[in-house]
């Protein structure tokens, strides 16, 4: 790090600071300015995120068509959820999505980061190519892949060249393949992002530890899991959070590619929420689905953070 040099370059202002010095330099008295530093961003987020969310959550106990007064209905929306076959499909698809999207992009991103960590000939080209998709918006990614999956499109043409015509199908219209076809497109875009995060993490890994393990006779596989992985814990937390958030919020790409079809087979919670809330303007019911999404996300994150802080302690 360049921190130390930067510090030395600065003139010291006054004597040594009084107050408590914890390991991480947390200081005692909190100046007013610091309170302002915290209060302003917090207020912005409270106002633009939590306040509307609170409004919406309260809507989940009502039946509301977007205009006029909302009718309070108690827990009726939630009861309806569990009798709704489309909601159940969406829930199941979301489970597949979290595992498939999260698992594949983390595994792919980690593998590529390890493979491309050390500099070498062509490495920066590989890296750029792999994270290029990440700059493309999800909606545009959906479009790109819709072209790929079109009947007689590149994928079918490619299969034809390989003599595998029998494999070609209506990728996005076949209920057996549609969800996975969208999943692949989403993973394609996400892998580069995860790879970048892991590359950053690997930079902070102490090579001497791995070296020592190698001297002790550990093979590459063992070194990776026993020596490198534990040092990536911080990065893993961020990646876990990003992955859970992204997989529960996935919306644009499914909407762009299938709109939840054919016959709701690729519906995710977020797309079903959008359909109910906005296409059909059942805002109460849509809000109830959103509450479920939020609760699931928070449950995932809290479980992980609790488990992790226990490990740290």
């Amino acid at each position: 790090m360049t921190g130390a040099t930067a510090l030395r370059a600065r003139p010291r202002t006054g004597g040594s600071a009084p107050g408590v010095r914890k390991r991480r330099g947390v200081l005692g008295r909190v100046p007013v300015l610091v309170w302002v530093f915290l209060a302003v961003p917090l207020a912005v987020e409270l106002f633009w995120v939590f306040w509307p969310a609170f409004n919406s959550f309260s809507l989940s106990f009502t039946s509301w068509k977007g205009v006029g007064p909302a009718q309070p209905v108690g827990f009726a929306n939630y009861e309806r959820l569990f009798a709704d076959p489309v909601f159940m499909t969406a829930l199941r698809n979301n489970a597949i999505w979290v595992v498939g999207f999260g698992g594949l992009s983390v595994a792919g991103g980690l593998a590529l980061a390890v493979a491309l960590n050390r500099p070498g000939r062509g490495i920066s080209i590989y890296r750029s190519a792999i994270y290029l998709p990440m700059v493309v918006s999800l909606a545009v990614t959906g479009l790109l892949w819709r072209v790929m999956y079109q009947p007689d499109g590149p994928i079918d043409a490619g299969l034809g060249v390989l003599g595998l015509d029998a494999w070609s199908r209506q990728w996005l219209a076949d209920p057996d393949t549609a969800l996975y076809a969208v999943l692949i497109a989403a993973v394609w875009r996400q892998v580069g992002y995860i790879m970048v995060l892991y590359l950053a993490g690997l930079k902070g890994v102490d090579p001497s530890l791995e070296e020592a393990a190698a001297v002790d006779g550990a093979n590459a596989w063992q070194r990776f899991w026993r020596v490198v992985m534990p040092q990536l814990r911080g990065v893993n937390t961020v990646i876990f959070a990003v992955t859970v958030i992204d997989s529960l919020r996935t919306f644009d790409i499914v909407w762009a590619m299938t709109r939840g079809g054919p016959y709701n087979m690729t519906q995710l919670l977020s797309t079903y929420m959008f359909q109910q809330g906005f296409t059909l303007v059942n805002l109460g019911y849509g809000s109830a689905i959103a509450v479920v999404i939020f609760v699931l996300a928070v449950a995932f994150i809290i479980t992980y953070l609790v488990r992790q802080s226990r490990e740290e302690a």
Partner: protein
Amino acid sequence: MSTSSTGLSRRRFLVGAASIGAVPLLASCVGSGSDAGTPAGGATTLTLQSSIQDTGPKAALQEVVAAYTGQQTTLNSVATEQFRAQLSTYLSSSTPPDVLAWYAGSVANSYAQQGLLLDVSDLWGPGGACANFSPALRALSTSSDGKAIFVPTSYYWWSIFYKKSAFAQWGIEPPTTWDGFIALCDQLKARGIHPLTNGIGSTAWMTSGWFDYLNLRINGATYHRELLAGKHSFEDKQVADVLDQYRRLIPYFHPNQTSWDAQQAVTPMVNNEAAMYLVGAFCTQYFPKEQQDDLDFFSVPTINPGVPTAEEAPTDGFFAAAGSKNPQGAKDLLSYLASAKAQQTYIQKSGSSNMPTSPEVDTTTFSPLVQKGIALLNSTQEITQFFNRDSSDALQATADAALTKFLANPADIPAAQREWQAAAKQVFTS
């Protein structure tokens, strides 16, 4: 940093409202719109919010609006989905768009009941722009409390479209009976031509075209309307009969129909790989210019001679927001849009084979196709609109799921009906 300080003051501003309680809260956000800045420009400009997406009609509307000599009018074309999702926001906004392009039916009616649509009864009164429109259009444009809330400006018909040159090349004629139609499909299929095309991918509602017509031909318009209004069950024997006929058609559709939308579905017809397409007359604009005059159509043949003839003719038009800051200007713009001149320009420029609602439009200059469409609708006994317009978007969603699933797995009709009815019941009871 200006965002942050305003963020604080705004927070304080809404905290007062917060004490009222959870749901009225939101209403209070809306209600407090009065302390918003004054609407720019006041009451001397107009905004027309349009959801028209197809390029031809979109350009035609731009041209019509540009030729408007009244107050300065801004035309906003937004994606249909965005429009649909934002419609309630538009209308209940403190500064709503003055005029909106949408269609008559349950959606307009429910907004009218909330008092969000401008009463345009004077346009329908003597001397008004819509005074001479047909009684059917008048009924369609009147809300349940008797106020006129809609200004229809064009409508179109549904039929089975085909290319004359292709039929000539294949040596076939449009069929006149249902059995003849099925025989024609068999004949085409045997020759390696896909008899029917459709686009039910991202436009799953296209599956309802055939459902509506089969229901109209087998059970009649009265039953169809009652079914869509929730007065019959989708588990009825009548619906089973419809699905039974629908099942006969499945092998004739182009297998790629599930990947296409309504617009892409014309591609195999352009290339003479598919023969016929049951679709609204808007489809003509999707064909290359040089093929548009080659198009012709025939009505879905009679199946049950015991029911009255019926055709689908969806009507498009405009309504105005009750909250418009410029209601007089909005009505003036609506009158202009309803005028014979504006309708004529719109129809001729859009290339989408629409028909005028104003009886004063000189239709003799229209293409033979449109003339034939007018004749078709004049001769039919019953007119319906389309599944969603005769029912609701929510019921349409159940039809989309039920019919696309049925087309993929047609074996078990009773199961399909059960599932559809269960979903429809949710719509009618919620």
